[in-house]
């Protein structure tokens, strides 16, 4: 793989850009791999990357039914933060944030990480108390966040209607290191790095069956034939239950639709991410100038990647009240993704009832920000067969033991 650099740009400029090579190979699958990963979203690709980089395992295939990054990774609103309440969450999300801070250099691929700062508005007395509690928890966890009052909110984001009338802003939980990154670039950067290590990314290849022998994984059936493997990682977000069913077990997940939409581009007017969880809306401005907007999930099981109309209306209505400036904006695009929700709104990184089958799922509405940390922890789990410190609390056994990592009460909205 040729390195991307200013010299490469100069060299290519001299020859009509004819020398750029493909970012990744598209090989035919081999008969057998040491590790097979199902799902070439951010989490699957990051798992593969750290398997190679940290654990020296490069005999890896990543099998994807569509195109890489075409699932939730390419459909999310790219909010990155690590201001969670529980210690286990703070550890893995902050690991992810730390890795994001150096990711473009590490991958030699510009993921456009933009730590522009993130505000979670408190618009009720309860939220205010909740966020102050989060600030104290974050302090103990070594995650820097702070509580700011309404005047500081006004100074940071002048387009917010601080006074209400319905939901006046009382202050905000502020994480200066939070922000956004380019979602596609995260998938593409990891894919390029994996391919360069000799891993095979096999797109347009749907997994249709999981083969086991005496309770241990033997391989998978795919639309491109059977593939044997020593370990299998299921990293398929909204489709995790479908894959688990192929292996003969069930997961504590429900798949529901989550939507996002963007406005026509306008001049820069808001240089941070603002989340208004009470009214279930959040917004940031993309580099192109579009206002990127998201809201809450639908309540019912759904695999159609289409969400319900009333959520668009409710979220937009709430945000127009908070940001009156957007009331005349035209919305350009709307789309949906299928998110995998757990009861405690925390992810699952775990061994399963089938030996050498591992799952990484349950990231629900908020897993983009976790991609590097999740891949790191998952690689450790797959390479060693037992979880390291980051994944240890996120096993499936927590449901049996009643040891939840409750972020649903803590956040309300979990993007």
């Amino acid at each position, binding site marked *: 793989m040729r390195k991307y650099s200013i010299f490469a740009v100069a060299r290519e400029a001299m020859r009509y850009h004819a020398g750029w090579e493909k970012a990744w190979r598209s090989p035919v699958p081999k008969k057998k791999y040491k590790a097979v990963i199902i799902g070439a979203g951010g989490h699957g690709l990051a798992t593969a990357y750290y398997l190679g980089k940290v654990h020296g395992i490069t005999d890896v295939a990543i099998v994807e039914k569509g195109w890489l990054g075409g699932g939730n990774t390419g459909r999310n609103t790219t909010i990155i933060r690590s201001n969670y309440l529980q210690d286990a969450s703070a550890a893995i999300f902050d690991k992810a944030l730390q890795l994001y801070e150096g990711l473009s250099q590490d991958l030699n691929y510009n993921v456009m990480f933009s730590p522009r700062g993130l505000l979670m508005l408190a618009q009720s007395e309860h939220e205010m108390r909740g966020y102050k509690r989060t600030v104290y928890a974050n302090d103990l966890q070594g995650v820097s966040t702070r509580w700011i009052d309404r005047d500081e909110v006004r100074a940071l984001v002048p387009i917010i209607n601080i006074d209400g009338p319905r939901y006046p802003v009382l202050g905000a939980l502020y994480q200066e290191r939070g922000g956004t990154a380019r979602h596609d670039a995260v998938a593409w950067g990891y894919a390029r790095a994996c391919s360069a290590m000799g891993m095979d990314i096999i797109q347009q290849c749907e997994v249709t069956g999981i083969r086991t022998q005496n309770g241990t994984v033997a391989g998978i059936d795919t639309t491109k034939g059977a593939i044997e493997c020593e370990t299998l990682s299921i990293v398929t977000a909204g489709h995790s239950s479908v894959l688990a069913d192929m292996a003969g077990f069930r*997961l504590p997940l429900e798949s529901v639709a989550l939507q996002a939409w963007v406005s026509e581009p306008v001049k820069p007017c808001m240089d941070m991410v603002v989340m208004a969880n009470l009214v279930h809306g959040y917004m940031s401005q993309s580099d192109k100038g579009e206002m990127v907007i998201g809201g809450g999930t639908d309540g019912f099981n*759904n695999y159609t990647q289409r969400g319900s109309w009333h959520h668009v209306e409710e979220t937009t209505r709430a945000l127009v009240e908070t940001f009156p400036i957007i009331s005349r904006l035209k919305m350009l695009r709307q789309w949906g993704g299928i998110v995998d929700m757990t009861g405690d709104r925390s992810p699952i990184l775990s061994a399963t009832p089938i030996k050498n089958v591992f799952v990484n799922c349950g990231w629900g509405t908020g897993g983009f920000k976790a991609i590097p940390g999740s891949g790191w922890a998952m690689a450790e789990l797959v390479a060693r067969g037992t979880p390291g410190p980051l994944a240890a609390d996120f096993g499936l056994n927590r449901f049996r033991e009643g040891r939840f990592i409750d972020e649903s009460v803590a956040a309300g909205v979990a993007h």
Partner: protein
Amino acid sequence: MLILTCPYCGIRAEETELHAGGEAHLKRFGPGASDAEFETYLFARKNPKGVHFERWRHSAGCGKWFLAARCTATLEVFGTYSAQTTQPPKHILDAIKAKRPNWEGLV
């Protein structure tokens, strides 16, 4: 937009008038059950891509819980029925089989 007919009051209600309540026909376990049984009852879900039996409440109407059979891959509704049953009634199963001949049945 999802529209379901409440089997009690016969009203066609759209989703903002309804409240989704998750998988139906779960086998309940109580005191004396094993940890595994209780875990399965509380948390393990089929979450199928296809035919799904689920609980709904006519929250902005009569307020009662009812059950529905629906396809999560197409959003097609096969029918709704009373919650006072442990099994889907025959007319619902027939409606599903007519449209999904390869359906594996309620497992």
